[in-house]
């Protein structure tokens, strides 16, 4: 089994990092006016985080703890986090942040990707959606596992129970990441881990980098929990609409199964996460409440940016991908 291949650079910083990953010599670029949400920073951060997950083909495994790379990661993380703290208004109330997500619109929501896909999504758009989401779903729940040693008591017991479910409750073929790979097979996409990194624009990378950032830093455990709660709370209605879109376009049984399972599973997960993970954490560490709220709002902020890009391009019947899919992939003629 070979690891994912390194992608092409998207600017000075990612170019310098890529050459360091190949031959170990880090040329430190001046990350002066680097856009915190831009392709160069987000790709570089993504590559650095990926060393903690599955790594890359031809990249030495022990670079994960290379002090030079960690220093670069810290610089990029600080820039990303500072931008998020500036763009996400401060909220003190975690319960209120989550309560706002528990309300469903009466009619169609023009700003929601899942509403769009349910009503008018075509197979090529569902494929692009799967391509972009594959960066997370093929490592689904992995970034959240890092928070486990940072939790105690009720929050820990509940977090582990939900993660156990995400990881297939003891059965490899029910690991959610595996179920997503099966969905990709139904859509004639390549289900190999990290295969579509090249296609993912900065908006998509940022949503995954956020989880890795929160997961890898104990100091951000409150934000990680807020992020996880947001994912679980918003998932059931979104998943129902995505399952309907896949059913309508005849995508296939495995494609529907991933989202059908997430309607039922996340209706349970959201209860357990709100009650016991968030509730348990804040009972033992009440000072983390603003961080939990920050995690909720930062997740919504980056999801909205990705949603804007998808809807803006799709409504003009353009691809939302950064570069087209390789020939023969995802181009089943209909």
């Amino acid at each position: 089994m070979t690891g994912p291949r390194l992608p092409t650079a998207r600017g000075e910083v990612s170019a310098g990092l890529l050459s360091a990953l190949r031959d170990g010599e880090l040329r430190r670029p001046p990350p002066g006016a680097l856009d915190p949400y831009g392709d160069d920073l987000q790709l570089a951060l993504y590559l650095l985080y990926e060393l903690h997950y599955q790594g890359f083909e031809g990249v030495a495994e022990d670079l994960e703890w290379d002090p030079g790379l960690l220093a670069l990661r810290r610089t990029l993380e600080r820039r990303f986090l500072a931008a998020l703290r500036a763009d996400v208004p401060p909220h003190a109330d975690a319960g209120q942040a989550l309560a706002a997500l528990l309300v469903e619109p009466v009619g169609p929501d023009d700003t929601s990707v899942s509403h769009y896909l349910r009503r008018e999504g075509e197979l090529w758009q569902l494929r692009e959606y799967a391509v972009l989401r594959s960066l997370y779903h093929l490592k689904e729940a992995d970034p959240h596992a890092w928070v486990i040693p940072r939790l105690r008591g009720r929050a820990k017991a509940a977090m582990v129970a939900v993660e156990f479910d995400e990881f297939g409750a003891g059965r490899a073929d029910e690991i959610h990441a595996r179920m997503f790979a099966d969905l990709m097979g139904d859509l004639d996409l390549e289900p190999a881990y990290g295969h579509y990194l090249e296609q993912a624009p900065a908006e998509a990378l940022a949503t995954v980098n956020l989880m890795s950032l929160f997961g890898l830093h104990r100091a951000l455990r409150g934000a990680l929990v807020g992020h996880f709660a947001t994912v679980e709370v918003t998932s059931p209605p979104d998943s129902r609409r995505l399952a309907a879109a896949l059913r309508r376009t005849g995508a296939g049984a495995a494609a529907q199964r991933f989202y059908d399972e997430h309607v039922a599973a996340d209706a349970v997960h959201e209860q357990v996460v709100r009650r016991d993970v968030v509730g348990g954490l804040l009972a033992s560490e009440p000072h983390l409440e603003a961080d939990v709220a920050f995690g909720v709002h930062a997740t919504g902020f980056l999801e909205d940016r990705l949603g804007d890009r998808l809807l803006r391009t799709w409504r003009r019947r353009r691809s939302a991908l950064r570069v087209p899919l390789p020939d023969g992939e995802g181009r089943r003629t209909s």
Partner: protein
Amino acid sequence: MANSPERPRRVTIDPDGPMLVEGPVEVVCADGTVATSRRFTAAICTCRRSRIYPWCDTSHRRRTDRDQGAT
């Protein structure tokens, strides 16, 4: 053990949401059909609006016009 007299199965009641029951659990529906969940906890619909009854699908959630704006 998951369901012994020393460790009885826990059922959690929430007036605004589903009933949470430690799994695995079988639900015998009014028409005699049996639904089974192996999940560590099952959320059983109490609002009767679920499309995957007897399991919760979050259909109990409050609905608002976007302009009324839930904040």
